């Protein structure tokens, strides 16, 4: 286990949001990713929760700052302010719940209008361990993702299948965009920013886009 100090050595900081219908498994997905285990008896998310983890992608240390939002429609006025500047967005649906899949379009629109125009988006079909209750096929979801020009993966927050891949996949796409010069991490202070040079400095606050509890 790296010490607190070492843990903070990173090259880039990416802000991610996790959105999708209530009960799709957003919090469990995050928990599985951060703690590598399933969160039993988990309650719903009130408002917004938050977690971070450093991953190693393409020879870089990338710190992910992940904002996990409440799924209920009613909470959107609170959660929307946390979208701003997200470099990556995970739209989670439940493969056993057709409705949660049908709402993908709305969530996609939200992410595109509220986060950034070039946010890297992945749609995540969760609960893929529950095969006998499947209501959305892999193929149709995959096709839908292609049509909308977003990434797609199926996961199980219960078994951990595919969970890490989701985060790595999105991080890699963002990293590629940076390396291709499509995103300048220094000018785009909101969704991503370089981490290493600011370690130990006291001035981290102003580069963060996340202080957005404006009402």
């Amino acid at each position, binding site marked *: 286990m790296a010490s607190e100090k070492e*843990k903070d050595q990173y090259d880039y900081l990416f802000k991610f949001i996790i959105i999708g219908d209530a009960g799709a498994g957003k919090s469990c997905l995050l928990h599985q990713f951060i703690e590598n285990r399933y969160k039993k008896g988990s*309650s719903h998310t*009130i408002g917004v*929760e*938050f977690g971070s983890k450093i991953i190693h992608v393409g020879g870089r240390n990338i710190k992910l700052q992940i904002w996990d939002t*409440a799924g209920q429609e009613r909470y959107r006025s*609170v959660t929307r302010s946390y979208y701003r500047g997200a470099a990556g967005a995970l739209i989670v649906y439940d493969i056993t719940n057709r409705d949660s899949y049908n709402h993908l379009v709305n969530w996609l629109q939200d992410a595109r209008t509220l986060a950034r125009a070039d946010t890297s988006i992945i749609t995540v079909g969760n609960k893929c361990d529950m095969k006998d209750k499947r209501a959305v096929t892999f193929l149709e979801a995959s096709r839908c993702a292609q049509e909308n020009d977003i990434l797609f993966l199926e996961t199980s927050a219960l078994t951990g299948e595919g969970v890490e891949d989701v985060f790595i996949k999105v991080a890699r796409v963002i990293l590629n965009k940076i390396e291709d010069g499509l995103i300048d991490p220094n000018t785009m202070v909101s969704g991503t920013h370089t981490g290493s040079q600011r370690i130990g400095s006291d001035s981290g*606050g102003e580069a963060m886009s996340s202080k957005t509890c404006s009402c």
Partner: protein
Amino acid sequence: MEATTALTMCSAPPSPLASGGVAYSPSAASRAAGPSVSSEATAARYGEMMSALEAAVTRSEFEQAQAIHSRLAAFVRTLDWSERTALEGLWLMPGWNNGRIMRLHSRWQALKIHRGCWSEWCSHLQSEGAWQGAVTPFSLRESARDLVYLAPPGPHRAELWRFCAGSAQHHDSAQVVVSDSEPQISPNEAEKDPDSPMVLDIERTPNLEEEQRGVLQRVLRAHFKRRGAALPEGNKGEHYVQGMHLLAACPIWAGLEPAQALQVFEYVLDGLCAGYYRDVAFRAFKRDVHVVEALVADRLPRLAKALDIGGVPVMLLAFDPLLCLFALYLPRAVVLRVWDVLLLEGAVAIFAVLLVLLELLLPEAVHPRGAGEPEPCWTSFPFVERFHERSAALTPHQAEAVIKMVRSMLEGQDRDQVQGAGTGLRQRVLDLRREAVAAEAGQLSPARQRADSAWWDQAMEQAMQQAAEAMDQVRLWWRSASDADSVLSPAQSPFGSGRRAGWPVDLGGRPPQPPAQPRAPPSPAGASPAAAEGPCPQM
């Protein structure tokens, strides 16, 4: 009543809200009286006895306090008029002021009712409808408010919660019916159900037996049915919002019957989480988040700075405290204990508990580093995770410490200054809420502004009413000629009316006045204690 109105104001600077009072300078009045100074020894003796009474009352030792009290009363009876006048001036008694006398008075009154244990307090509940003497809904609440900090209510929690919710609500509790025949909806049907998040949340509410899950569902459905019925046809009314299920689950955890659980749920929803769930934009909630932000900046400035550097909005720490009243992360036993205090103290206690928890659970960000100790790297410090993990690990023993700190925060400087420009938490919360409303006013439609101003007026009115009622109680005690408990035994005092020990006003020439009437005498009918007592303190 002129003199007594002035009395109520003498401990606080005149406030524009306390209109109608005669501006009165207590010190000038007492100097004008030119008291003949009694011996220092008498004052010292008196002060000593008062301190002893205070110590016994603080320890909730009823027998001892009563003994000291009788000695004190006997002692006062031996004094002559001029000696009493001098004692009332308080200047012979360093360390005593109006606030301290008020606190001692109210805690002694509280102790006389609860005598240090909840079963004694509950024995007075049974006489509801036939209030006797000093026992009124108001004094019962004050008594519980004292006792709640001393001991957990244990098996009497249900009675306490019912009392808190019942005495503050205007509806007849007999009308609260939670039907057993309410159709149950299985999780499989949930997708077709418009309330499906509710069903989902009921399924994932922790600490409930299967049967209790059914009760939770019935309570929530009964609530929406009641709310829906009050609205015009076609308006579906209030909808389930995630988080409400925890507010409804808490009374069930506390062992309340369904109808009582519904009553407590509706009370906390309307009284403590006032307006949070009401509008889609969560405006009242966001306003109170601003209040939390300001309070953290006021009282925990290092934490405020660390959060700022870490880019963590204070809102993330406030979701559970405000929307679920701490029910999401604290262990069940601790939540119930916190609710004991919230129900008695009102919404201001939410802020107090949150401040205390932040201070206790995020010590690395709250307290200054020792020499040579490096400051943690705030940009990667997991504030939210730590706060929630440590909240979940709180023991009942630690909860008692939290509650003691909450008390000192609420009673520190402001308890007796509800209507003045106090610096205490109550006043600060009132001011901050007013600022939050004012800050929004520019962007609001006139209708919206009116609604907000009504919200504000209501809060103020409640605070004022509370203060006035507290003063009435004190006034009655000190003035009542027949009250054998009175320390200064006004029956034998030449200034038995319009006078209290320690309030050096109204010394000359006024004719004796009849004792003040309580604002609204409690009627024997079950419905009106609420009217007599007014809503639960909101601030």
